[in-house]
């Protein structure tokens, strides 16, 4: 039952990994949803530019995704490296 320093560090790393990926997923999810909503609006207004709008949406979402990927990287670092 004695809790050692190394155990506490490992426990904190696991909890941190969960919080990193969990909280980090909120922003990109909401942001990418906003992009998709506006893309639907734009295509509804101007369907002829659907291809261009889809491309713009995907590029915008990819940029918004980046912070989610940072969270994933940090979570995996916490799990397997540190």
């Amino acid at each position, binding site marked *: 039952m004695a809790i050692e320093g190394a155990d506490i560090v490992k*426990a904190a790393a696991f909890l941190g990994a969960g919080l990193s*990926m969990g909280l980090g997923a909120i922003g990109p999810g909401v942001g990418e949803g906003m992009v998709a909503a506006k893309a639907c609006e734009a295509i509804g207004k101007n369907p002829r530019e659907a291809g261009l709008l889809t491309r713009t949406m995907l590029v915008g979402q990819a940029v918004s995704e980046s912070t989610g990927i940072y969270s994933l990287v940090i979570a995996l670092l916490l*799990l397997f490296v540190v």
Partner: protein
Amino acid sequence: MDIDTQILVKSAAFVGAGMAMGLGAMGAAIGEGYTAAEANGAVSRNPEISGDIFKNMLVGQAVAESASIFALVVSILMLFLDVPLDNLLNGAALLGAGICMGFGAVGSGIGSGFPGGQACVGIARQPAVASRLTTNMLIGSAVCQTPAIFSMVVALMLVFMGFDQAPLSPTWAALVGAGFSTGLAAIGSGYGGGLAAGASCEGISRQPESVGNVTTVMLVGQAVAQTPSIFGLLVSFILLFKRFPESYELQAAMALLGAGLCMGFGGIGPGVGNGMAAEGAVRWVARNVKRAGELMRIMLVGQAVSQSTAIYAMVVALVLIFVV
């Protein structure tokens, strides 16, 4: 030591009951307030049909209320149920059940308010399609309730399953984590599903002939918006049913608690985002019904990208459960 365990389990039941009802009251109250506010606006716009609007408001609010009624039922159960007091794990399970039901009712309660409010506004705008709007509102807000129902299922399983043979540690963390996973993930899906349902009521009142397409796109969009809460349910079931070997190291427990928090928080954003995408698509299907196919396609592509972070969260949660 016996008395200590009994006091702890009893306290956990009371804290859990308080969290279930306290958190569970938030969502429905906000959603119903939104419905009533929109109904007031609608009555001032078209006072002659205030009776229809009033009826629709009450029906919409009754559906939104159900999320907090689930919370009330779970809370009362936890207060009066005779759980065995000699096992600390029952305390963890009751705490997890309270967390699960409390957070789980928030999103569905708020989300169900949107279709209710928009249906009232729509009736003021187009009194002729009142019954169609009420039907669409009921379909939309019923789907919004599913995340709250998932939470109630997990909460009831935590209350009734019994964990006599399981080792205290790390099972306690698995039970609390199971509560967080479904409860938190339900917030986004409930709220997002409500956005789509609200937009569909608004759209039908503008273009009543588009009702078939609008309802279809709404249901597809809501179904995708539910997936983060299904991921949360999946992680909860794994945490509930997997047998974890006894370990009194802190890291084993924190990995399971971390898995629940990861999937729970990770489900919020994609649930809301998928709902926003569905809202945009539904709104414009109503205005430009000839392009319904194209809009549905772009909605699904956008939702798939928005979903990705929920999938990352599930991967990290599964790694925390099975690998480390």
